[in-house]
């Protein structure tokens, strides 16, 4: 089976580990081989969390520079920072709502201009899908649903070897009951947004 490589980057606390978990479970449900890895050493202390998910017939659980087919960024400057994982054929999805790192507040560095971020990514990769996922998560009823919004957008690209229904089924069975409905709504909003972005 062909190999699809996905990188997800986020800031600790944004819930990207749950989204990779959902994708992994959906792959298991669909009978698609899946391997993932994550680096979350001090994620709870505000660092970057990176997950790699490899679908298809591969043994490796990590993804080298330039080898991601898909990059999903939960935070715009982190999406830009992860551009080294991309090549000219990579499809990139990013949330546009920034979480400036603390270094900016203490005057060590300047947060990149959001238009410039999009321009750069667009010029270097095959496609950029960019929108404010936080706004959509709020619309769905939970600001913390950014991960589900972005999963929706990811599903919309059709690049993953997973049926949309299997992802949705996993969301309803694997996320907390109280949130399942809101999560599915967030997923749908992200799906729709990616269609027009």
């Amino acid at each position, binding site marked *: 089976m062909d190999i699809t490589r996905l990188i997800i980057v986020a*800031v*600790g606390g944004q819930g990207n580990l749950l989204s*990779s*978990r959902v994708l*992994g*479970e959906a792959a*298991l449900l669909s009978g698609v*081989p*899946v*391997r*993932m*890895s*994550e*680096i*979350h*050493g*001090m*994620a*709870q*202390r*505000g*660092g*970057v969390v990176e997950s790699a998910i490899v679908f298809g*017939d*591969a*043994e*490796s*659980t*990590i*993804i*080298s*520079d*330039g*080898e991601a087919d898909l990059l999903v960024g939960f935070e715009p*400057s*982190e999406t*830009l*920072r992860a*551009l*080294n994982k*991309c*090549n*000219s054929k*990579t499809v990139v999805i990013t949330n546009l709502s920034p979480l*400036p*790192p*603390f*270094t*900016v*507040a*203490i005057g*060590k*560095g*300047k*947060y*990149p201009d959001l238009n*410039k971020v999009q321009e*750069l990514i667009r010029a*270097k*990769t095959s496609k950029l899908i960019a929108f404010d996922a936080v706004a959509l998560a709020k619309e769905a009823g939970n600001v913390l649903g950014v991960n589900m919004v972005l999963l929706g957008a990811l599903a919309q690209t059709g690049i993953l070897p997973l049926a949309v229904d299997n992802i949705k089924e996993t969301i309803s069975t694997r996320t907390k009951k109280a949130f399942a409905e809101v999560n599915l709504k967030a997923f749908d909003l992200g799906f729709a947004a990616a269609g027009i972005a």
Partner: protein
Amino acid sequence: MHKLLTDDPGQKMLLLGNEAIARGAIEAGVAFATTYPGTPSSEISLNLFEISQESDLYFEYSTNEKVALEVAAAAANSGLRTFCMMKHVGVNVAADPLMTLAYVGVKGGLVILTADDPFMFSSQNEQDNRYYAKLSGLPMIEPSSVDEAKELIPYAFDLSEKLQEPVLFRTTTRVNHSTGVVTLGKMRPRVTKGGFGKDPFNYVTVPAISRKLHVKLLKNIEKAEELSEKSEYNFTKGDGKWGIICNGVSYNYAADAVTELNLSEKVKILRIGFSHPMPKQKITNFLKGCEKALVIEEGEPYMEEAVRAFAQEAGLTLPIKGKDKELFSQLYEFDPAMVRGKIAKYFGLPYTPPAVVNLSDVPEIPQRPPNLCAGCSHRATFYEIRRAAKELGMPTIHPTDIGCYTLGFMPPLSMGDFLICMGSSVSTSCGFSKATDKKVISFIGDSTFFHSGITGLVNAIYNNHNFTLVILENGITAMTGHQPHPGVDMANFSLSGYGRISIEELVKGLGVKHITLIKPYRVEKSVEAIKEALNYKGVSVIISQEMCTLYAKSLKKLKARPFYVSDKCKNHRDCINEIGCPAFFIEGEKVRIDPVSCVGCMLCAQICPEKAILPVKSEK
């Protein structure tokens, strides 16, 4: 029921490497488990801790790795299947019992897991613990993947019982923290009560007995080598005149490279999963069929040295390479494209590396280093110590230790000048205070103090040193994910039947004459008390008591009362520049506080010269 207790052989489950290892232990019928938490091993014990609360598995968080291994050694010598897990540097702490336990051996299976951390994602060094197998003479098992890790744990237990020796089980971060699909196997019933057959002439390691036991160990190594030769985990894949010898995750990268470079007819791979003793005959036979061989292993040239020696002994002259300026480094972790590129290079194949996008015009992106949480009590303590020392005009040196508070070494707090290992803050303070004229103020967390700070403090009292030790007592082992330690109130875990040690009483008992308790969120009071402690000649101890904010939040013991910056603010920015709390941000040149992250510790409110930082509720 805990998901790892699911009794449904054949069921497929998506598991984190560390969960798979814990499941492997359950399938192996492990009855007794000990650990000291350390990344990347922590989730194994976390799961076993949970499982022990709903089964007859005995599990303990031991004070440190040496203690964990000694507790385990007794259980295993009473016949129980025993699992002892730690991070790679933990084995240094446990090395003393390890070396002689190898002489003594075990009755019930004992597997000692070492979680190595190439690239040092969360460690102070990237030592290669395969050499501990060589040093101790114990067998070593190394999985390549998550599912294999689960499978190999019962294998390692069987091996341990067959040889009556502990078995070392080495993982790397990319096994511990990868996730994969695992097929559940049968669970062997736990045998939780053992018996100890007295046999002092084999157990009490006085010289005359150890001389005999060393002979036994050498015989055992021979037996282990036979098993390694026959082991299905030292297997060959593919066929061809070029050979690759690899282990662990390097195998995954090599196997993928062979597929991607279309080499399955040219290259054969020998994967070593039973890596001590190395299967000499298997390797020699493998080399005999090769024109050229490449050894792919992260870390040190452990296999390469052995492979070269075997070739030499067999009079084989084929080229063998591994660690080399042009090929593989001893540094950091490997990745699939890098391994693919080196394989192509060594065997002279055309290869185009992945076309990474051109990054030359990407502006510098501000760094996002980890930071102490908003409201972390360590931040308040660090600020107060710095201010007290400054007001006393004391030039200082700050030995620090391992925990969240290590992050205090970064500006703007800049509290941390020297760190080598767990517990080193206390003992290096002894050295610095004698060797220099500076005031030494060192930092250690509560869990680390129990782990290996106490002996340093005993030394300081006995040798009459002169420094101030700050014990950051936040009631939990925070950094590795909130595990308990001997000073923790186990009621927080809804558990009873544990003892609890008061750090204050302990320090008093050790003979410390000047002990100060502070509540770090009370700034002025703390600064005054700290000054007094700093002026004391001799060993003074400050115990800063405040529960870890993140933990308190998770226990619902802390209700956030966020603050905001009112228009009294004159933009001095003392708040941001002095304490560096991540709840602050700048919006249009104005200082703001993120109400979601702020917990209301009030540190900033107390140091703001304009008293401009106020609780949100008073906002009009």
